[in-house]
């Protein structure tokens, strides 16, 4: 009986231990891979085995698909959210603030300082500043620039500004018209920029005195008179902003306009970022250019309408250029073309070489 009792006790012990080890193993066994992973990090360092795959997918790892097209193999477009953030939270509000504050500064400057006057008043004698071809080039670029700027700004801000006015259908129609016009006129702007560059580059290279002009703020703040050639340093900076900005706008615009070469979303998004920044910079700086060309400086507008400025204007703002013109006029008998207004020679030879 004792033996029987002994085997019975052993039996019980076995059962208990078996149960305990079963429970223990059930709890511990699943941990083995983790233990292995802990001991050998290189064979199993990833707690979730799927993480690698999904991380790759989110970083736009390209898979295969039966659907033909651009980027169809990309499961997740990783840049989309970044681009959205740029457009909605940076480009639109910062651009609006930039343009608004520059406009406000210009108005404020005009109210406080008023237009820059010609020293000693207009002399009544005129001097030709821009040839016919130069003015054609300028206004050709201007009209394309504003056509593109306005259509572009409507596409950028119309949702917030024009939908309340025109309604969704009305603005859809407006925006469609703007988009098509923008896409068609865009490539022509490249032609205009190249014409601008060829026409004006020779007078827009850095020359002695430009730095001095810049340091003195162009005489706009202190009121003093600063010496300058045909174009002062400010005009030269504007020229290079317009040309380089125009080239960036054209290049990125062409990428966006011709989505037929298989460029994917990443390229388009980067092009859009460059396009937006360049556009807002050039538009903002152009406000200053427009102000200085019209209301900001007395007697300037004539240089781009009929091509002539007052001699006193030239002496005030571009004394070295004035001296050059006078010297050149003194040398030849064709002085009439600079001194006397629309004489025969200035009328019949309107197209400057180049």
């Amino acid at each position, binding site marked *: 009986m004792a033996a029987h009792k002994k085997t019975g006790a052993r039996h019980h012990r076995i059962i208990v231990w078996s149960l305990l080890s079963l429970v223990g193993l059930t709890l511990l066994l699943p941990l083995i891979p983790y233990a292995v992973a802990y001991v050998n990090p290189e064979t199993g360092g990833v707690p979730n085995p*799927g993480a690698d*795959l999904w991380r790759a997918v989110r970083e736009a790892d390209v898979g*295969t698909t039966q659907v033909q097209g651009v980027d*169809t193999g990309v499961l997740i477009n990783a840049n989309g959210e970044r681009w959205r953030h740029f457009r909605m939270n940076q480009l639109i509000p910062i651009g609006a603030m930039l343009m608004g504050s520059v406009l406000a500064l210009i108005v404020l400057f005009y109210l406080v300082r008023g237009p820059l006057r010609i020293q000693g008043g207009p002399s009544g004698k005129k001097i030709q500043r821009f040839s016919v071809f130069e003015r054609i080039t300028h206004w050709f670029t201007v009209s394309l620039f504003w056509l593109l700027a306005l259509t572009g700004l409507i596409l*950028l801000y*119309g949702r917030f500004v024009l939908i309340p006015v025109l309604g*969704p259908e009305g603005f859809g129609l407006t925006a469609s018209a703007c988009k098509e016009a923008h896409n068609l006129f865009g490539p022509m702007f490249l032609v205009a920029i190249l014409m601008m560059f060829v026409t004006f580059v020779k007078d827009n290279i850095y020359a002695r005195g430009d730095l001095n002009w810049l340091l003195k703020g162009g005489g706009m703040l202190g009121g003093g008179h600063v010496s300058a050639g045909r174009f002062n340093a400010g005009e030269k900076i504007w020229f290079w902003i317009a040309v380089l900005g125009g080239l960036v706008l054209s290049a990125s615009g062409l990428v966006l306009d*011709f989505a037929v070469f298989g460029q994917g*979303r990443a390229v388009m998004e980067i092009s859009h970022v460059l396009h937006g920044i360049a556009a807002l910079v050039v538009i903002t700086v152009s406000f200053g250019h427009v102000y200085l060309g019209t209301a900001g400086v007395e007697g300037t507008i004539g240089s781009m309408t009929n091509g002539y400025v007052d001699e006193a204007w030239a002496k005030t703002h571009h004394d070295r250029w004035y001296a050059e013109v006078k010297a050149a006029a003194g040398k030849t008998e064709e002085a009439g073309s600079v001194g006397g207004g629309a004489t025969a020679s200035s009328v019949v030879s309107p197209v400057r070489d180049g």
Partner: protein
Amino acid sequence: MARMKFLCDAQRCIECNACVTACKNENEVPWGVNRRRVVTINDGSPGERSMSVACMHCSDAPCAAVCPVDCFYTTDDGVVLHDKDICIGCGYCFYACPFGAPQFPKSEAFGSRGKMDKCTFCGGGPEADNSPEEYAKYGSNRLAEGKLPLCAEMCATRSLIAGDGDTVSEIFRERVTWRGASGLTWGWGVAYGKKGIRRGHDVEGKATGGD
């Protein structure tokens, strides 16, 4: 109110493209447009996974956020739709969408794309339900008939499921429970008994949800 969701179970998708075909057929989409596509990652290698993807009808939809003419709207069922009468075909929604859902019938010079087309969750558009105009522009409106999108209804392995978000996730949770809590107990390794594959490449049942 129900909030409609798609869910694709990557453990089940066998890349048969039936959903793609069903969608094209049901909605008579324009040439060159595929509202739904199946993407295979690691095609032909161990750990290959396929996933059917279309518009996921996001709660905070990036397409709607960037649209210059604000032509997107979300229905009471949480389906993101758009108005082709307002769309100008600029392509911004395509840049912003994480899933590449917006499609364009054309891709020509000078930014000519035509009006955007995308998955409507078989929910039509702003026109009257099941009108010929709605069908011509947006395809079928199965939701108005009380049916779910045909792609999901058609899925042979029930990988792609569609419906109210709560129901869908409940079904999926149940599946994951049945497969076992760990990805190690199910999948390639078990099916083919290869060493090394089990752990390194196996995939816990994962799903893409809209948001």
